[in-house]
C-alpha cells in the first residue's frame, strides 16, 4: 500500500480531503480516531486491510492513490452501524462510499463490483442469480420474481436512470 517512512505534506493532504469531501465524505475532518466505528464494523471483523477508521486516518494524512487498488472498501455492507455509533457525526459509511466513488471513477474496482453493476443494468438487480428459479418452483411460485425481472417496462426505467448517471462515463455497458 505504502512503504517506508512517508514525508507528510500539505499538498497531498488537501487533495485527499478535497477529493473525499466532494464525493460526500464531508465529515472526514471531524474524526478523532476513537475507533468506535471499527469496533462494530463487519469489514474489520473479517480483517480487511481497510476499515472506516483506518481509511479516514489515511485520508486525513494525505494518502489517496496509495490505497486505490485495495478492494476492502467493496466489502462494506452498508450496515451503517458506524454512523449510529460515531460520537462526532463523521458518518464513516459516507466516507467509505466517497472513496468507492473515487475508486470507481479511476476504474479501480473489483470484478465482483463490475458484475453487480452489469446485473443491475441488465436485470434490475445488483445481486442476481439464476439458481433461485428452481427453489421458487419447488414451493409453487412462478420462476421469476415479481420485480423488474418480470416487468420489462420497469427494467427500462432503471436502465434510463443508469444511462443518465455518471456511471455511464465508465463505459461498462
Amino acid at each position, binding site marked *: 500500500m505504502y512503504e517506508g517512512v512517508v514525508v507528510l505534506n500539505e499538498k497531498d493532504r488537501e487533495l485527499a480531503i478535497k477529493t473525499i469531501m466532494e464525493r460526500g465524505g464531508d465529515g472526514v475532518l471531524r474524526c*478523532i*480516531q*476513537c*475507533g*468506535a*466505528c*471499527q*469496533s*462494530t*464494523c463487519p469489514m*474489520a*471483523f473479517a480483517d480487511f486491510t481497510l476499515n472506516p*477508521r*483506518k481509511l479516514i486516518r489515511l485520508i486525513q494524512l494525505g494518502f489517496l492513490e496509495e490505497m486505490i487498488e485495495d478492494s476492502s472498501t467493496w466489502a462494506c455492507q452498508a450496515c451503517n*452501524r*458506524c454512523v*449510529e*455509533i460515531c*460520537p*462526532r*457525526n463523521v458518518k464513516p459509511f459516507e466516507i467509505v462510499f466517497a472513496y468507492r466513488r473515487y475508486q470507481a471513477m479511476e476504474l479501480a474496482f473489483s470484478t465482483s463490483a463490475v458484475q453487480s453493476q452489469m446485473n443491475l443494468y441488465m436485470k434490475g438487480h445488483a445481486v442476481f442469480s439464476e439458481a433461485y428459479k428452481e427453489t421458487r418452483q419447488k414451493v409453487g411460485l412462478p420462476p421469476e420474481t415479481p420485480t423488474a425481472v418480470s416487468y420489462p417496462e420497469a427494467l427500462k426505467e432503471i436502465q434510463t436512470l443508469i444511462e443518465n448517471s455518471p456511471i455511464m462515463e465508465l463505459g461498462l455497458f
Partner: protein
Amino acid sequence: MVQVSTNPNIELLTYSEVESVEGFVGNFKVKVRKKQTWVDWTKCTGCGECMEKCPVKVPNEFNAGLDHRPAIYIQFPQAVPKKAVIDIDNCINCAGRKFGTEPKISKRTGKPILAPCERACGTGAVNRSLNLDPNGEIVELDVGTIVVATGFKVMEKDWFKEYAPHHPDVMTALQFERLLSATGPTGGKLVRPSTNQKPKVISFISCVGSRDVRYHSYCSRVCCMYLIKQAKLIKSKYPDIEIYMHFMDVRTPGKDFDEYYTSAIEMGINIVRGKPGGIEVLPDGRLRVMAYDAGLGKNVEVHADMVILATAMEVPESAKKLASTLSLTIDASGFFKELHPKLKPVETAVEGIYLAGCCQGPKDIPDTVSQAKGAAAVAAVPLARGKVVIEPTISEVNQEKCSGCGLCVAVCPYNAISLELVNDRPRAKIAPTACKGCGVCTSTCPSEAIVLHGFTDKQIEAQVEALTMPV
C-alpha cells in the same frame, strides 16, 4: 457537612426551593418555598424507626436506583440535618390515614388505628391527623448577595442502547460508586448484580455521552480520573480481578493526577485506547465488549462480568427554571454562564449573583472547592463594603411634563415605576434602585417626560444621524 450544621452563622433551609428573586445587589428579596416534609422536624430525632415500618418500596435515589427506600425516609445515614420526610406521591396512606383525617377507632381495643409510621414514631413527629398544607410554606428573606451552586446530574445509562443498558451488570459509574461504598446497598461488598458473585473481569468505558455530538459535545473533565480511582480501589482490594479501561483519550491534567494514572498502569490495570462500539450479552450472561485498540490498530474484545459506563455530567432540568428566576444567562451546553471565561469566572451578568461548582461547567472536587471559596470571597465584597454604587444611567421622570397616564408603569419589566400624587394629580415616579436603564418607559412615554440618562433622545438621534452619513 457537620461543620455547616454547627456554624452559628449558617441557617440551613433544606427541602426548600427558591421561588422568586427581586431587587438588586445588596438588597435582594428572595422568596423560598419550604416544601412540606409531613414530619415535624422540631420533634424528629432521626432515629429511623419509621423507615423500618413503612411498607412502601420505591427506587432509592441516593443509591442511584440500586435498591429501595420506603416512602417515609431519611435521605442517607449521614444526612445533615438527619430528619425524615414523607414522599407523599408514593405514600399509600396505610390504615386510611390520609393527612388531615381522624383515625378510625378499633372496635376490638377501642383505641385509634394509626398508620405504621405514626405508631413507630416515639416523639409524635409524625401525626397524620394534622391538616398540613401540601405546598409547604413560603419564607421571605432579605439578602445582599447570592451564590448559585446547584450542581449537576449524571446521565442515565438508558440513553446508550449500544451498551446493553437493560442488563443489570452494566451500570453507570455513579451506581458503581454506590456499590463500592460502605453505606451502599451491599455495604461495600463488590458483587455482580445478576449473580451476586464476585466479578472476575470488569470493563470501564469513558466518554459515554461526553465529547459525543449526539449528546454533549463537552468533556465532563472528571470521568478519566474517577474511573481510574474506581479501578485502583478494586485492584488494590481484589488483585485477581482483571480490569480493562477503554478511553478515547486519557485526560489527567491536574496536580498529582498523571502520577495517579501511571500508578494504575503499574498496578496491572489494562488501558485500551479506543471507544467500544457495542456490548452484546453472551450466552453465559457475560458481556462481550466490542472494542478497538489504537496502538494495535486492531479490534479487540473483552468478555466482562461487569461494565461501568462513565456517563456525562449534565445540567439538571431544574437549572433552566432557576436561570429564569434569577435572570441568569446559560451557555450552549446549558450551564450557567460566567461573566467572563478568564477574568470573571464566578461573576454573572446579574450583579450580586455569583456561581460556584458544576452549575457553571463540569469540574472536579479540587476545582469546585477553589471556585466555591473564590465565589465566597467575591460575594463578600459588597457585604464588606457595606454599600453598593448604582450606575446613574437610569431613567428619571420630569413630573412637570408627566400626564399621569400610567403607560410606563405597565411596561416596566422591573416594577420600578409607580404613580404618586403630586398636588392631587397622579405622577409617575421611578425607584432608582429598581431601574435597570432598559429604556422601555422612555420610548413608551407619550409626553416625552422620561429621560434615560446617558442615552437621551438627543444622543440617540445624533448617533443615528452620524451612522447614516456617508463616510
